[in-house]
């Protein structure tokens, strides 16, 4: 590897104009060598995305940026650069790829139109852009290129859109690709695909990659160097081995500790793995569901026992969320039967159905989006009580308070609103909102996938805590096997609209799926 520096940033300081406190990013300096993969890791809010956006001039005007940027050791710029400077840098020198690929593509342009606007902006003429687009799509392992070119974002899966985004980002041959959490919204298989492709781009095109993640495990396998960020500062830097042996900060030790603990065994599971009572709580028999001539659920049957956490995983689009919505009564099904507490959902009276459904609660992935930003969280948690009229009016507030306290929300947050809370806290409030009506069955749809690793384990520990305390069964849907492994008694693998296999206790611990690389997809 040549030691040519693609980028050098020195004394980067960023401050938000309307906040009175000191800089958000403090005195950051580092460089990136040609062909290197450098990972920036840190908890949410540590400033990693802000840092990355500063390198492409994408920060909002309210951010005051200062520092020096040197590109390829010759081009010196004083930050914040002018528009002319940035339009010379973006695309040609540095490109930025976002976390949510579906959102990063213009919903009413086809993939081909995306390539066209990108390549034409870089001076490539009308006749050649199509050839280049095809070349890069095939570089990213697309086989039916013509279909992809004429597709819109909504017609592509999460993994495919992310590959399209990468193709768009590298088709202008930048020196540095900034990949901001690009794998965290993907299932494990697509995640591995994307990582492989990034590696390919590095090896074959000599591109440097700045990889931003909260998942140290990914960083460990993939990167040459790791920068650990905390509160806007780089607190540790070096290769994983070096961090493992000589990390001094508690944060880094913690993160490494979690990875190493995952490897060994699962202490938490042992704690709760008393055999669930064989009483069936939810019984699903031969459910079918079709969307646009596509069989989403195909003769699916499962039983979930009382006092059990049932995990469900499978590729994106295999019908996990559809099943969850059907169980919660948010979606209809074509045929089949669902029994809850021994009652057939389709046959009971409207009144009883309402009563039964109040015992089923749902927590969504995008917890922030589920909380009304204009209401205090104490009111949000009381809402289900009011609708279901389970308690006297004057008791509701106390019940809500108790419930919030039980999920670990401090009293001083009770009258705040969701934008003032962290993602982890929002997830706790969402849980409290579901638990406040004393449900018997809790459906958790990807509730940990947007969280950083420490918060994720906090929430999982909270779930175990709730489980031990309450008389409750849970269905936990996730593509994160380590999370499922951590809390579930049984884990079902969903494929082609049905449960293809259920892994139970010991069998699972016998390493069938504990290593995510040998997934039985």
């Amino acid at each position, binding site marked *: 590897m040549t030691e040519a520096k693609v980028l050098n940033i020195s004394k980067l300081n960023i401050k938000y104009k309307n906040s009175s406190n000191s800089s958000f990013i403090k005195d950051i300096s580092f460089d990136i060598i040609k062909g290197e993969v450098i990972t920036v890791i840190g908890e949410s809010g540590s400033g990693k995305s802000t840092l990355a956006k500063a390198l492409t001039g994408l920060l909002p005007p309210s951010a005051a940026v200062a520092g020096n940027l040197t590109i390829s050791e010759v081009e010196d710029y004083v930050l914040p650069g002018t528009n002319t400077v940035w339009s010379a840098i973006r695309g040609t020198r540095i490109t930025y790829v976002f976390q949510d690929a579906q959102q990063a593509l213009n919903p009413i342009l086809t993939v081909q139109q995306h390539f066209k606007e990108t390549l034409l*902006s870089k001076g490539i003429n009308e006749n050649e852009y199509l050839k280049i687009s095809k070349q890069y799509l095939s570089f990213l392992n697309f086989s039916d290129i013509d279909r992809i070119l004429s597709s819109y974002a909504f017609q592509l899966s999460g993994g495919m859109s992310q590959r399209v985004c990468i193709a768009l980002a590298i088709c202008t041959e930048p020196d540095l690709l900034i990949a901001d959490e690009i794998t965290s919204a993907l299932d494990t298989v697509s995640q591995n695909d994307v990582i492989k492709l990034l590696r390919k781009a590095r090896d074959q095109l000599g591109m440097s990659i700045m990889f931003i993640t909260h998942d140290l495990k990914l960083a460990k396998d993939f990167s040459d160097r790791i920068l650990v960020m905390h509160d806007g500062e780089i607190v540790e830097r070096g290769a994983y081995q070096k961090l493992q042996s000589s990390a001094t900060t508690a944060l880094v030790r913690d993160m490494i500790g979690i990875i190493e603990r995952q490897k060994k065994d699962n202490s938490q599971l042992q704690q709760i793995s008393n055999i669930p009572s064989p009483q069936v709580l939810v019984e699903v028999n031969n459910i079918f569901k079709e969307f646009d001539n596509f069989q989403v659920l195909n003769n699916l049957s499962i039983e979930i026992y009382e006092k059990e956490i049932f995990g469900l995983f499978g590729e994106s689009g295999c019908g996990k969320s559809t099943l969850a919505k059907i169980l919660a009564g*948010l979606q209809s099904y074509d045929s089949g039967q669902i029994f809850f507490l021994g009652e057939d959902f389709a046959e009971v009276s409207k009144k009883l159905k309402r009563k039964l459904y109040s015992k089923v609660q749902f927590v969504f992935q995008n917890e922030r989006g589920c909380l009304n930003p204009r209401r205090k969280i104490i009111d949000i948690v009381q809402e289900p009580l009011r609708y279901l009229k389970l308690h006297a009016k004057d008791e509701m507030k106390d019940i809500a308070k108790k419930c919030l306290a039980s999920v670990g929300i401090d009293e001083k947050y009770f009258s705040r609103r969701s934008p003032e809370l962290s993602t982890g806290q929002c997830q706790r409030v969402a849980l409290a909102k579901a638990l406040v009506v004393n449900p018997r069955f809790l459906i958790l749809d990807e509730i940990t996938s947007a969280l950083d690793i420490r918060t994720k384990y906090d929430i999982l520990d909270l779930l175990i805590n709730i489980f031990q305390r309450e008389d409750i069964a849970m269905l936990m849907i996730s593509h994160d096997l380590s999370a499922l492994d951590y809390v579930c008694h049984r884990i079902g693998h969903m494929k082609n609209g049905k449960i293809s296999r259920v892994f139970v206790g010991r069998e699972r611990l016998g390493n069938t799926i504990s290593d995510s690389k040998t997934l039985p997809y």
Partner: protein
Amino acid sequence: MSLRNKSIVSKLVETGVTLLLATLVLFIIINLAPGDPIRILLGTPEVASVNNQVYQEKYQELREAYHLDDSILVQYVAWMKNVLRFNLGDSFYTNQPVIIELGKRMPATLLLTIPAIIIQLTLGIGLGIISALKHNKTIDNLIRLFCVFLSSLPGFAISLMLLYLFAVRLKLYEISHTVSLMRLYLPTITLGIISSPALIRVVRSNMLEELGKQYTAFAIARGVKKRAVIRGALKNIMLPIMTLAAHSSVNLIGGSVIIESIFSWPGIGKYALDSILLRDYPVVQGYGFLMICIVIAINLLVELGYIFIDPRLKRPERKIRWGG
């Protein structure tokens, strides 16, 4: 049948049903309105005829001739049959077919409103985009001030002000009641300007939203030129723009009454107003029918436009079932 064709066919069926219902309501309302058209046609008995017997016979004869004693539904079917043969009846006053009377005045109204719509779209989209791009800068504030100023004044006040300025003070505009290009520019510009603030606001706020979305950031980050970025965002706000433009063109065509009266422009709106004052029912009915057709046609165009502009509408919606 493809999904796109399916939705086109269902839109056309919807349109047919809407047309029937709207004309039925129009027909019933006009028939319920006080006043007997035959008496109006014949004049009151004292004046029209010395012999009441003759008057009564004539009255009955005409009522039968116009099927006024039939039930309202039978009358509606008869009227509809005539309408389908492009026969909207004759005006009580000129005895000319209504369709010809309306047809004579339609070009003047279109001559007024089509350029006005073009001015509205140009101003609305142009200033809206500039306002969004220069968010919270001086020019944005000026544009917003302009919008507040225009929308807080009633249209007729602005018209009168402009008329006074151009015709009386500057003597650049001729006050008469003829149709000529030299008499067109002032009402057109006035109509265009007073209808633009709503569009400017819609374009500005939608544009700001789109420019804040991640696809815009990604386009900028991979070096797409500013022009192309704006074009991409603009395509996404075509739906609200089209909705508003359609809505306001209906308003402009149907509601140009005031402007036409102020500038004494012999268009269809002024004619309708005069006919209402004269109780010329066939004309009012015909005008109502024409307006219904225009509204429905514009809405149909917009909905078909949606299907062609937005690829997502090709996919049927996934409906949430409200359980419980």
